[in-house]
C-alpha cells in the first residue's frame, strides 16, 4: 500500500472497533448535558446513567450503519492501488454499477418507448389540468407556491448548476421583480401582464449589474459577495422608506387582470394556477433548449474548467454575464407572480433564507438536471407544508438531508444526464452489428 493513503478497513473487526470508539466519544462528549442534571431548587444532582447507555448504543449503531453505507457506495476496494496512468474504463465506474446506472437505463427506456412516453405525458397533462377542480383552493394555492419554486430553481440552476457560479444572493432578483410590480401597480396602476416581462427584463439588468463586479471571483469569494448583494438589496428595501414604503411593505397589489370578468377568490386562484403552470412549461422548454445549445455547452464548459474553456475560444466574460442575466430573469418573473398572488409584499419575504431554500432545491434535486429540480422543489416545498408537525425541524431536516445527499449522491437525487447522439455512418465500415 503506497504511502499517504489511509488503509481501507476491510475486516469487520476494524469497523466494529472504530464504531465502538465513536460511541465512547459520544458518551463522553454528551456526558455533561445528557447525564448530569442539576436542579437548583432542590439543590441536588441527578445522575441519569441510563441515558448514557442510550447515547452509546445509538452512536454505535449509527456509526456502524454510516460505515456500512459508505462502503457500499465505494464498492469493493480495489486490491491494487490503481495506477493513474492506466485507468481502465471499468475501474472508474465507481458507484455506477456496470456501464449504465439505473437512472441512465430509465432515461434510455423512456427515450425509446414512444407509446409509453405519450401515455405518461397525456396522463400528466390531465392530472395537472384537473388539479384545481379536484382539490380545494388551499391545496391549489400550495401547489402554486411549489410551482413558483420550480421556476426559481430552474432559473438558479442556470447560474449554479450549469455555469457553476455559486450565487447566494438570488433572492435579490426575486425581490426586484416583486417590488417592481408592486411599486408600479401602487403608483401607476400598471397591470400584471404588462409588468411580467418588464420585471423579467429588470431582473436581467440587475443580474448584469451583479455580474460585472464579480467577474473575476470564483467559488467561496463569489458566494460571499453575492450573499452580500442579496442582503444589501433587502436592507435598501427595508430602510429607504420613500422608495419602497419600508418594512411595512406594500399592500393591495392587483391580482392578474382578467379582461373585465368578475372573479372571486377561488377563480383567481385557479386562474393563477394555470398561469403558473403555463409559465413552468415555458421555463422547462427554454431551459432544456438552452442546456443543449451552443450557449449551454459554453456554460458547462465554464463550470468544468475555466482555463480549457477559454482555450476553446469561449469568451468567459460574456458567458458568465449571460448566465447571471438569464438566471435572474426567472427570479424577476416569479417575483412578479408572488406580488400578484399574495397581493402584499414586504422586505421580510426576501431574506437569505429564501436564497438558501432555492439553492437547496438546486443542489438536492440535482445540479443541471431539470427533472431533478422539479422533484427537489416539490419535495422541499410540499413536505413541510403537509408535515406541519415537522415544520419546526425544517432547518434541521434541510441541513441533515443536504449533508446526506452531498455524501452519498453528490450529483443530486437525479444527476444531470447528457444528451446522447446516434450516428449512422454512411459507408459500411466492414463490421456487422
Amino acid at each position: 500500500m503506497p504511502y499517504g493513503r489511509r488503509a481501507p478497513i476491510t475486516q469487520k473487526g476494524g469497523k466494529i472497533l472504530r464504531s465502538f470508539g465513536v460511541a465512547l466519544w459520544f458518551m463522553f462528549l454528551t456526558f455533561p448535558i445528557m447525564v448530569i442534571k442539576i436542579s437548583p431548587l432542590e439543590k441536588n444532582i441527578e445522575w441519569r446513567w441510563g441515558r448514557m447507555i442510550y447515547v452509546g448504543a445509538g452512536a454505535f449503531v449509527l456509526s456502524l450503519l454510516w460505515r456500512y453505507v459508505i462502503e457500499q457506495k465505494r464498492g469493493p476496494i480495489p486490491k491494487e492501488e490503481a495506477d493513474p496512468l492506466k485507468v481502465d474504463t471499468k475501474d472508474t465506474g465507481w458507484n455506477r454499477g456496470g456501464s449504465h446506472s439505473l437512472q441512465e437505463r430509465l432515461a434510455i427506456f423512456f427515450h425509446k418507448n414512444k407509446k409509453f412516453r405519450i401515455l405518461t405525458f397525456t396522463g400528466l397533462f390531465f392530472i395537472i389540468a384537473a388539479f384545481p377542480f379536484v382539490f380545494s383552493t388551499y391545496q391549489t394555492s400550495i401547489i402554486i407556491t411549489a410551482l413558483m419554486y420550480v421556476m426559481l430553481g430552474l432559473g438558479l440552476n442556470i447560474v449554479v448548476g450549469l455555469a457553476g457560479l455559486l450565487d447566494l444572493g438570488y433572492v435579490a432578483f426575486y425581490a426586484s421583480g416583486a417590488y417592481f410590480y408592486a411599486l408600479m401597480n401602487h403608483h401607476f396602476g400598471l397591470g400584471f401582464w404588462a409588468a411580467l416581462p418588464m420585471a423579467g427584463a429588470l431582473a436581467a439588468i440587475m443580474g448584469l449589474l451583479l455580474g460585472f463586479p464579480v467577474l473575476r471571483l470564483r467559488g467561496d469569494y463569489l458566494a460571499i459577495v453575492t450573499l452580500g448583494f442579496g442582503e444589501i438589496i433587502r436592507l435598501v428595501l427595508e430602510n429607504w422608506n420613500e422608495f419602497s414604503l419600508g418594512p411595512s411593505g406594500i399592500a393591495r397589489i392587483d391580482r392578474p387582470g382578467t379582461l373585465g370578468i368578475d372573479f372571486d377568490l377561488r377563480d383567481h386562484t385557479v386562474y393563477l394556477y394555470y398561469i403558473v403552470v403555463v409559465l413552468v412549461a415555458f421555463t422547462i422548454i427554454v431551459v432544456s433548449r438552452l442546456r443543449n445549445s451552443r450557449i449551454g455547452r459554453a456554460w458547462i464548459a465554464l463550470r468544468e474548467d475555466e482555463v480549457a474553456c477559454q482555450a476553446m475560444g469561449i469568451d468567459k466574460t460574456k458567458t458568465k454575464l449571460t448566465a447571471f442575466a438569464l438566471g435572474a430573469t426567472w427570479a424577476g418573473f416569479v417575483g412578479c407572480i408572488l406580488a400578484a398572488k399574495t397581493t402584499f409584499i414586504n422586505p421580510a419575504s426576501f431574506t437569505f433564507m429564501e436564497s438558501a431554500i432555492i439553492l437547496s432545491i438546486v443542489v438536492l434535486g440535482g445540479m443541471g438536471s431539470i427533472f431533478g429540480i422539479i422533484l427537489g422543489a416539490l419535495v422541499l416545498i410540499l413536505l413541510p407544508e403537509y408535515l406541519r408537525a415537522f415544520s419546526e425541524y425544517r432547518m434541521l431536516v434541510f441541513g441533515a438531508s443536504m449533508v446526506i445527499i452531498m455524501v452519498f449522491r453528490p450529483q443530486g437525487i437525479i444527476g444531470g444526464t447528457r444528451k446522447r447522439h446516434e450516428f449512422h455512418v454512411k459507408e459500411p465500415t466492414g463490421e456487422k452489428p
Partner: protein
Amino acid sequence: MDFGGLRALEKVDLYVAEAEIVAIIGPNGAGKTTFFNCITCVYQPHRGDMIIYPPGKASKSLNGLKPNTVTEMGIARTFQNIRLFKEMTVLENVMVGRHCRTRAGIAGAILCTRKTIREEQETLEFSYGMLRKVGLEKQTNEKASDLPYGAQRRLEIARALATEPFLLLLDEPAAGMNPSETAELDELISRIREEDGISILLIEHDMKLVMNISDRIYVLDYGHLIAEGTPQQVTGNPEVIKAYLGECFDA
C-alpha cells in the same frame, strides 16, 4: 516572462513555418509550458512580440489579447495535465471546440430557429468527423472522464482541432502513453499535418517520438534557447547533450 523573482523565459526566438512540425524539448522546469501559456495569452509576457501570419490573412500581433481571441485567430492547444470537460460526453467536448466557429445565440436557442438547427447539425457532423479522425467514434456518448488515459489525450487533440486552427500546440501529448499508443499518436500527428496542412508545435519528453516526426527542434534550458536545428544537428550539439540529452541517451 517572470514569476516574481524567477525568470522563467528569457529571449526565446522561435518560428514555425506552414505545415511544419516543430518540437520544443528541455529538462523539467525549463519553461516550455510557460512558453505555450505566453503564446496563448494565458500569461502576458513582460517583453517580446508574438506575431502570426494566418494563411490568407494579414499578419497580427498576439500581444495583449485574451486567450479566447487567440483561439479564434487559429491557434489551438492541448494541456500537459489533461483538462477535459469531465462531466460532458466525448462528443460534447468536441462540440465545445466549435463554439468560436459558430454563431447561434440565446434567442436562436430558445426559439429553435431554422438557422440554429442547421448550425447545430453542422456542429454535430463536424465534431463527429473529428472523433473519427482521432479514432474515438465508438465512444461518442461516453463521459469524457470515463475514457482511458491515452484516449483522453486524443480527445483533447480532437477538441483542439474542432476550432479549425492553423497552428496546433501540443503539450506533452505522449505523456503517460504506452509504446503502441505513442506509435498511434505519431501517426495521428503526421496525418493532421498532411491532411489539413496544420502546423504543429509540440513539447515532448519522448525522444523517439520527437526525433521521428519533427522537422526542427528547439532546446530550452532555464528559460534560454540553447540550441535549434534538425534532429541530427540537435543530437550532435554538445551543449544540448550536456544540458539534457546526455542523461537521456546514456542512462
